[in-house]
């Protein structure tokens, strides 16, 4: 099972004819994802990889292929338009990989989506993968994943792969891995993903990877303390970052005390989460947690 993506996910790739879009669409297909359509305005009528029909608009793609998820690779100036186009066509799940979308574009998009039955993951995220269902909708290297019962939710891309690599190395498989994105304004928060993991019968435990900036980790900690019943281990990176500097991610900038790694770690500790002391300990700390709870990998 897992959350959000599985065997029934019918993926439409927006920006499928671009350099990044085509490369990753191919990799998703090779992993086993069901890519049913591509969209590039002006390139409709062609076939991608001789099998996937390309359309001029999301509306046509959805009507023809019953796509139920959008994966967006369009460049930053057009990302807001691409997201809203999919939402407007009734696509219920959208993952936007694009990095560098203007913050005020995302403010308008987030406002628009408030009234829509749509979940947006990202932007500036690696996407989602459900190894058990062989469904990869994103840019993560598929080969490092192992089917299993531990969920991962993270604000980062490559650090998520690091986490997956450590877990897989110890034989700990993953139910679903969700990268929610490194921007200040993103579609889906830690809490929303944790809620889904809480309800998922095929997820026994969760690894959460946060970072400096904002207060989303504190919100997650409050939810964990109040409602989350599964074992959870948490890491917050950026302890060595100087205040006021943007550490790569637009969202990773320390402003105010609550945005520091220390404050976030404290919140998780007080909420009863297992604290992962350093990024080198993601696997071992999670393994110990699973054992302590009588769970297998």
């Amino acid at each position, binding site marked *: 099972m897992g959350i959000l993506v599985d065997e029934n996910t019918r993926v439409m790739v927006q920006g499928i004819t671009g350099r990044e879009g085509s490369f990753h669409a191919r990799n998703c297909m090779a992993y086993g994802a069901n890519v049913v359509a591509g969209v590039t305005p002006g390139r409709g009528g062609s076939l991608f990889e001789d099998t996937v029909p390309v359309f001029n608009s999301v509306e046509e793609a959805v009507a023809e292929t019953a796509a139920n998820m959008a994966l967006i690779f369009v460049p930053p100036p057009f990302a807001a338009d691409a997201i809203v186009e999919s939402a407007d066509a009734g696509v219920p799940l959208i993952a936007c990989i694009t990095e560098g979308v203007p*913050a005020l574009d995302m403010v308008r998009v987030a406002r628009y989506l408030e009234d829509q039955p749509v979940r947006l993951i990202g932007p500036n995220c690696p996407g989602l993968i459900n190894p058990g269902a062989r469904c990869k909708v994103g840019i993560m290297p598929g080969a490092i994943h192992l089917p299993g019962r531990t969920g991962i939710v993270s604000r980062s*891309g*490559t650090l*998520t792969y690091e986490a997956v690599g450590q877990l897989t190395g110890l034989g700990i498989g993953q139910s679903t891995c969700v990268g929610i994105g490194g921007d200040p304004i993103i579609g889906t928060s830690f809490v929303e993903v944790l809620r889904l993991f809480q309800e998922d019968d095929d997820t026994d435990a969760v690894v959460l990877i946060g*970072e400096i900036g904002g207060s989303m980790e504190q919100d997650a900690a409050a939810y964990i303390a109040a409602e989350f019943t599964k074992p959870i281990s948490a890491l917050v990176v950026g302890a060595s*970052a100087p205040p006021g500097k943007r550490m790569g991610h637009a969202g990773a900038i320390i402003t105010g005390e609550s945005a520091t790694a220390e404050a976030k770690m404290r919140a998780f500790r007080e909420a009863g989460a297992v604290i992962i002391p350093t990024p080198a300990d993601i696997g071992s700390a999670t393994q110990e947690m699973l054992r302590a709870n009588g769970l297998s990998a």
Partner: protein
Amino acid sequence: MKIHEYQAKEIFSGYGIPVPQGSVASSADEARAATERFGGRAVIKAQVHAGGRGKVGGVKVAQSPDDAAETAGAMLAASLVTNQTGPEGVPVNQVLVEELADITTEMYLALTVDRVERRPVLLASASGGMDIEEVAATSPESIHTEAIDPVLGLMPYQARRIARRLGLEGPASSAAPGLLSSLYQLFVDNDCTLVEVNPLIVTGDGGLVALDAKINLDDDSMFRRPALRELRDRAQEDELEAQAAELDIAYVNLDGDVGCLVNGAGLAMATLDVTSAAGAAPANFLDVGGGASVEKVASAVGIILSDEKVRRVLVNIFGGILRCDIAAEGIVQAYRAANSDLPVVVRMLGTNVDDGKRILQESGLPVVFTDTLSEAAEAIKQAG
């Protein structure tokens, strides 16, 4: 991207937001002439991108044109060190010479994007002229917050509510809604991440004036704001950070001696944390990005090697979009170009990792290969 106060005030003026009469000076003589025009007395304000200048002599009142010349001359001759700069400070290449304001009340105004509300928020406080972080810590109830629906914009009733909370009366109260709505328009039109007026003052005749102005712009919107891009002042930026920015490499200069090359912002932060935990100090944060070419990796490593404090290099590449062989070739190129023999600890995983390792092995560079993050941290400690 940060811009100077005088640039922000020019933008304010364009939106009809009152600012003091002022003139930018880059020499003592220009400061003297400006002060004469303002009637013989003026405020001299160092133009730097760092906050906290008021506490360290970056803002001074000149009582005469000669005094202004002397004050400006001294400011322009030295770097300014504030609690927001490093110990080397930032250069002062211009001062803003302004007429003295007739202050009766000082208030605080700011616009930013609230991540939790996911919309712009207007912050207002009657405690102006102070460090707002301090106000937030000691008396959070004195800061009024107004979330703005991006579809509607700042509504007049919200502006009136802020005026009321600020305790404004008479002409200042009538002027406030117009000023606030202009400020919001400015925020949106220029893709700002922060607009701050600290203080906003009520003058003796009841007018509102932005005595200070701070604007931070969204780096990600620069593609559609070519005019704003011109406002960038490279002299205020760290030299290596400015070089990296031109190459579209996310780089932050730090204090240690371990140069770090990583792909991905989260993994880069994690690498710094692991390095620090092992007792070594990172010289920089560097995310070379996903689709980097050999040239880009070489430029990134070149920046690391040109940093005089770097004594050892840590490479942590989780190959996905970025292939390990590309990274390896870039590293070798940069080492050869810099003729460097600094020890390099390499941790590589993922796409084409064997090719990457072979290229480094055959290069003859002083490479130590490690498999895990903790081994890499241990090895970099040993290399020190």
